[in-house]
């Protein structure tokens, strides 16, 4: 099995590990993946994947405005807000 590209996974997951952590996670993930690779021993051809234990059907809600929004309340827990906007470092599109 090819070595797991931890740096790539960290990019996708927006995590930053230092070298020691990367080495540790490299080893852990290799062992975890080796453990889950036991699955490959079972022939599952033709088996429909089970996404949800009860396999229900999506219920729909009527198109009604039911939420009253209190932005001050929601924004009191935000790290950086001004003029009602959430602030992040400048984004260049």
């Amino acid at each position: 099995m090819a070595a797991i590209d931890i740096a790539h996974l960290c990019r996708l997951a927006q995590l930053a590990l230092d070298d020691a952590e990367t080495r540790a996670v490299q080893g852990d993930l290799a062992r975890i993946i080796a453990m889950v690779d036991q699955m490959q021993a079972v022939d599952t051809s033709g088996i429909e994947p089970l996404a949800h234990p009860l396999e229900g059907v999506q219920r729909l809600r009527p198109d009604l405005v039911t939420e009253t929004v209190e932005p001050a309340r929601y924004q009191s827990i935000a790290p950086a807000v001004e003029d009602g906007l959430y602030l992040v470092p400048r984004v260049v599109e």
Partner: protein
Amino acid sequence: MSTPEPTAFTPLAALARGLRERRWSSRELTRHFLDRIARHDGALRSFITVTEERALAQADAADRRLAAGAATPLTGIPIAHKDLFCTDGVLTTCGSRMLANFTAPYDATVVARLDAAGAVTLGKTNMDEFAMGSSNENSWFGPVGNPWDPTRVPGGSSGGSAAAVAAGLAPVATGTDTGGSIRQPAAFCGLAGIKPTYGRVSRYGMVAFASSLDQAGVFGHDVADLAAMLAFMCGHDPLDSTSSDVPDPWLMQAADTPPAAPARAPVIGLPREYFSGLGTGADALDAARRVLEAAGCRFRDISLPHSPMAIPAYYIIAGAEASTNLSRYDGVRFGHRCENPQNLEDLYRRSRTEGFGMEVKRRILTGTYALSVGYFDAYYVKAQQLRRLIQNDFLAAFADVDLILTPTAPGVAFPRGDLADDPIAMYQQDIFTVPASLAGLPAMSLPCGFHAGLPLGLQLIGPHFGERALLETGALFQRDTDWHRRHPEGFPA
């Protein structure tokens, strides 16, 4: 039963009777448990937040409601919530630095329903970060001690709720169970703990770990406590499209009429895959089987052949779902944000890296791997196919038996630190609980003995929506045993 004054271990029904008969007030009851928390929790760390003022206000409101004769069986009863149920205006941390500053602006449906019933919230209990763990060592707020031996773990992820109830710091507590997070700590702490059928209880306002597996449940001393809580927690919620609308009139009134031994003793299956090589606890399970047999239950050997695939499939499915459920923690709208982010990427990476602990990062990376291009079919789809095979095993078994009996955990509570460096060994803690989670089945752990002074648990697994059979069979077992009346010596009533 006549109880002159409430003790830390008085069953809910007796507490409620005392409230109705004015032998004690909810304020007194609440004060009693708040005092116990103050006295004992320093050693256990089972609570992250104690909501004293709020609890006393709720207790006063409950006393007025009791006086007005508008009480439910839970009105005035102190409870505790696992700290991943959002509680309006109260810190909800999920055991994580990421949410160490998160005051939820709304109530989880479970919280709202129990509040509406008049229950009093003592506080929020410690847990493995984002419910990922089997020992409660993965909490930003520190590890939780097991009341039976504080140098040992209480199990996880709902370890704080289990420890709090076992030590008599709360009569009952909510928990959540994704792969065993109620059942394994219940076993380790000598409690009854139930994970209902997937969808029985709304997930709205429960901080998500793995959406297709997460289910709220309860810790208590006996099945009557579990039933009383579930009666108010269960039922369809329009805010959770995956919550079930299968009504259960029996369960709905289980707070008024506690479960009694079933009219017809069930046929119980013993899956051979769960017993082969079982060391610790084998004798206790054998004894439990004899108790049930004596009460009229019949036993049958069965096979659940895909059980060994449950742990691998679970760690892929739970990891995949968790990896994207946890993407919302980005330091923008709530939660931890790093100091002086230089740019957007820096904001994301440092906030998330600082905010999440190592086990959470491992699971996010495992899940990201399983969903990424080139691996999706080999891991995610494969795991879902195995999930079906595992569910099919159970469905086939339930054609022949009413319930399934297994050990809850492979051993007793282990010393803190023993498995901390070995994620794979830690994952094996869930070997007996994960299959029912994957299949969405209700399952319950009950105390069934001791090994070296530490509690052991048995697990009963029922068919979908088979909570009644579980609780009634549990009532039968607890009628004829007294393991659930043993309490740790360090925390006298």
